[in-house]
């Protein structure tokens, strides 16, 4: 199935937007078209990027750790609307420049090159690279496998504080959905044999 056929059969992309999406996708790994300024009229959108958002994790010793990040809102737009879900799920975003510097410092230029190129080209399933935005001069790195959850009031306050720093473009949003789907719904290895056949 080629891109156009898959896009047509997806049921997600309106027919009149398919040509535009295909043209954008053919530019990959140039993904400069992914992001826009925060949407001017719709405040609550899936994949919006918010600054200074608290993310908590449980450390190996069992203690909670919390820090503020620029985050990507994972919830579907439907569930972000007032009065629906009481929680919001976010993915923290790293500064790719700092990430790359740490990698080079550990592995050397040569040792890190191939890995960083794969990350930058979105070949790594657990990561989504974003073009430069906010204070991320060399782009941002979304860690799709480190999601955090916060009360929806935190999200509401964040919106009140004008913390949105970017939204995804229409085609960018489709790209985001593809990355999420590929990450979460990729096939399990045939070496994994589960009990029970029903």
């Amino acid at each position, binding site marked *: *199935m*080629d*891109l156009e056929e*898959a*896009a047509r*059969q*997806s*049921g*997600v992309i309106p027919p009149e937007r398919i040509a535009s999406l295909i043209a954008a*996708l053919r530019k*990959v790994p140039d993904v400069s078209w992914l992001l826009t300024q925060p949407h001017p009229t719709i405040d609550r959108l899936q994949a919006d990027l918010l600054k200074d958002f608290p993310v908590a*994790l449980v*450390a190996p010793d069992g203690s909670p*750790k*919390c*820090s503020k*990040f620029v985050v990507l809102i994972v919830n*579907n*737009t*439907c569930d*972000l*609307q*007032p*009065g*629906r879900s009481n929680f919001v799920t976010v993915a*923290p975003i*790293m500064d790719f420049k*700092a*990430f790359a510097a*740490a*990698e080079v410092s*550990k*592995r050397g230029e040569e040792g890190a090159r191939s*890995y960083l190129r*794969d990350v930058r080209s*979105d*070949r*790594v*399933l*657990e*990561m989504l690279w974003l073009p430069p935005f906010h204070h991320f001069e060399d782009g941002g790195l979304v*860690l799709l496998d*480190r999601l955090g959850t916060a009360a929806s009031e935190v999200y509401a306050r964040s919106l009140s504080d004008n913390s949105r720093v970017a939204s995804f473009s229409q085609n960018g949003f489709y*790209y985001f*959905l*593809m*990355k999420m*789907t*590929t990450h979460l*719904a*990729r096939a399990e290895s045939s070496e994994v044999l589960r009990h029970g056949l029903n």
Partner: protein
Amino acid sequence: MTSLIQHIPMTFLMAYSAAGLKGDVSTGTTNAASLEFQSELATPTENFSYCAPDQDEARTSLAWIALGKELLPEGRPLLDWERQDADEFFWSQFA
């Protein structure tokens, strides 16, 4: 104003609307969104129109996966050392 409709399951609304289509109940409308408006007796909930319409979800999901594979055919999971480095960097952001 507290929204009443948000506590009514979508399945109920659909069934209620479908019953209206068959003439079993009289609501003045056969449209779930309009029904919501009437139930609210004020403004419709802000969220209703942002929820996805019904689709053939199995077909849609498979085609969506196919689209992702076409787009990123060389996609791969993190190698062990890459994951270890990423973890280390990630934890450093909590210091």
